[in-house]
């Protein structure tokens, strides 16, 4: 593949992390109508890393992709404003699960032939934390999940991964799939002029149906509910009172 690298970055439109979502009165799903939507925070880290690789001359082209409805174009604009060269909307009105998203992205990867696919390690809405690993499996690529450093060296992505009790370093042969942790970098702030410029860049739309694969859900949502409530907090006046309560009431101290 030579030294010239194309990068594909998957970005997802999610409810903004500052918003507390509510449940529909019938408990059938969460109410998303009118909620402020943003790019998934982890995907900003993926975009940032892609731009840094381009700025140091390792990458030549950065392509952002999202799977969703036309409304998801706003996260592609965000990616373009961060510096992506091109953006693709894989348009689908279906409720997609990670396996379905991975299957659609696989076909796009086969068309675009990037050397590296970057995804967020998890999305903050559904929190499944699996799309990248699934995509790597379907492509039969190596994977680097939950990465906090990245260097491209001799046709490999050398990454630090966050694991229990510390970190590990692995080298993944290119082409590869990587998923990003928040600690990978500090995403750049998108300036208004860049956002205005991004509005003029074209977004390519591909109908996911055109790919002709079955992405129907494997899971049925039975219901959604509030988490189990905690009982009200008892305020104590001092450390002695706290120790006394922990001992005699909560019985967590000897």
């Amino acid at each position, binding site marked *: 593949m030579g030294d010239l690298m194309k990068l594909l970055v998957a970005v997802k439109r999610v409810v903004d992390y500052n918003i507390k979502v509510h449940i529909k009165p019938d408990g059938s799903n969460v109410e998303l109508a009118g909620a402020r939507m943003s790019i998934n925070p982890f995907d900003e880290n993926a975009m940032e890393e892609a731009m840094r690789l381009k700025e140091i001359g390792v990458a030549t082209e950065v392509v952002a992709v999202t799977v969703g409805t036309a409304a998801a174009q706003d996260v592609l604009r965000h990616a373009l404003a961060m510096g992506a060269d091109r953006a693709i909307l894989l348009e689908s009105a279906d409720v997609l699960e990670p396996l379905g998203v991975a299957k659609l992205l696989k076909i796009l990867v086969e068309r675009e032939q990037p050397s590296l696919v970057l995804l967020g390690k998890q999305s903050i809405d559904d929190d499944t934390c699996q799309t990248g690993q699934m995509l790597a499996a379907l492509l039969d690529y190596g994977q680097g999940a939950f990465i*906090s450093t990245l260097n491209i060296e001799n046709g490999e992505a050398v990454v630090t991964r*966050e694991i229990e009790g510390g970190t590990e370093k692995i080298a993944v042969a290119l082409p590869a799939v990587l998923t990003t942790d928040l600690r990978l970098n500090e995403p750049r702030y998108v300036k208004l002029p860049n956002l205005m410029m991004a509005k003029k860049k074209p977004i390519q739309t591909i109908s996911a149906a055109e790919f002709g694969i079955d992405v129907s859900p494997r899971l049925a949502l039975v*219901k959604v509910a509030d988490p189990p409530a905690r009982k009200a907090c008892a305020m104590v006046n001092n450390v002695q009172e706290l120790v006394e309560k922990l001992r005699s009431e909560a019985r967590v101290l000897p």
Partner: protein
Amino acid sequence: MSVLILAEHENQKLKPSVAQLVNAAQCWKQTVHVLLVGNDLAAAAQGAAAITGVASVMCVEAPHLQHPLAEDVANIIVGMGREYSVILAAHSAFGRNVLPRAAALLDVEMVGNVVEIQAPATYVRPIYVGNVFATVRSKDPIQVVTLRASRFDMADIGNNAEIVNLAPPPASAKTRWLSEIRNQSDRPELGSASVVVSGGRSLGSAENFESVLAPLAAKLHSALGATRSAVDAGFAPNDIQIGQTGTVVAPELYIAVGISGAVQHTAGMQDSKIVVAINHDPDASIFQMADYGLIADLFEAVPALTAALP
């Protein structure tokens, strides 16, 4: 059909999550097999064989599996997987790395971070930073599930299951393990500790983090945890971050010191039995999560608490 549990181990010791998974697996009323992947597995295999409810322990040993890679472990699971109706792992960094890869190769969706098994294919899992609990039913022929292990009691010990050795498939040619950094600590493992003392950015420095919290942790024989802000500021190592993007804990006692209580943090400790919050701001949202609250300066309250304990 049977249940396959992907076991985690470290330094030849089985992790406590394995006994929790074995207990959770009993709801399927099927034979339970435990899969161990690594090098030099004898001691961990003995540990797994002793767990009540385990029918066999399957060991895949090879030098290149000393530090198992997702590619290799997923291949092993897929090689065995079609004989199983359920494949379980803990929702840990290891489980989350491996199981989605195996699920995709088996062409099934994975159900992640399950906190309750309501029926053999019906699961409860938190979404939206733990603000919502979703009940989902899987239609897949093989159930691939990661469990929040701390939500399940441990199975008893006192069994002597058979131990079977399986030949390893060839090593992945795509990924190489290079090195690791393990943060050394004599404290209990965070994910399974029964007491956790956790600190925020308010500690102000790595030195304070250690000098204020370590004596309390020592008296309580607790693990230490931290907020993302404390980790990002360099006060605490990354592997003790608690929250949506860190470790999820469910101790008997959780002491939150100078922590504001952002949902991304509380998502990682909301299962704790008793929560104590020490914060000088009476409006801090951590008090909504707490059983006992103390409005105080942490630099005075924590040493006083340490001194008051035997």
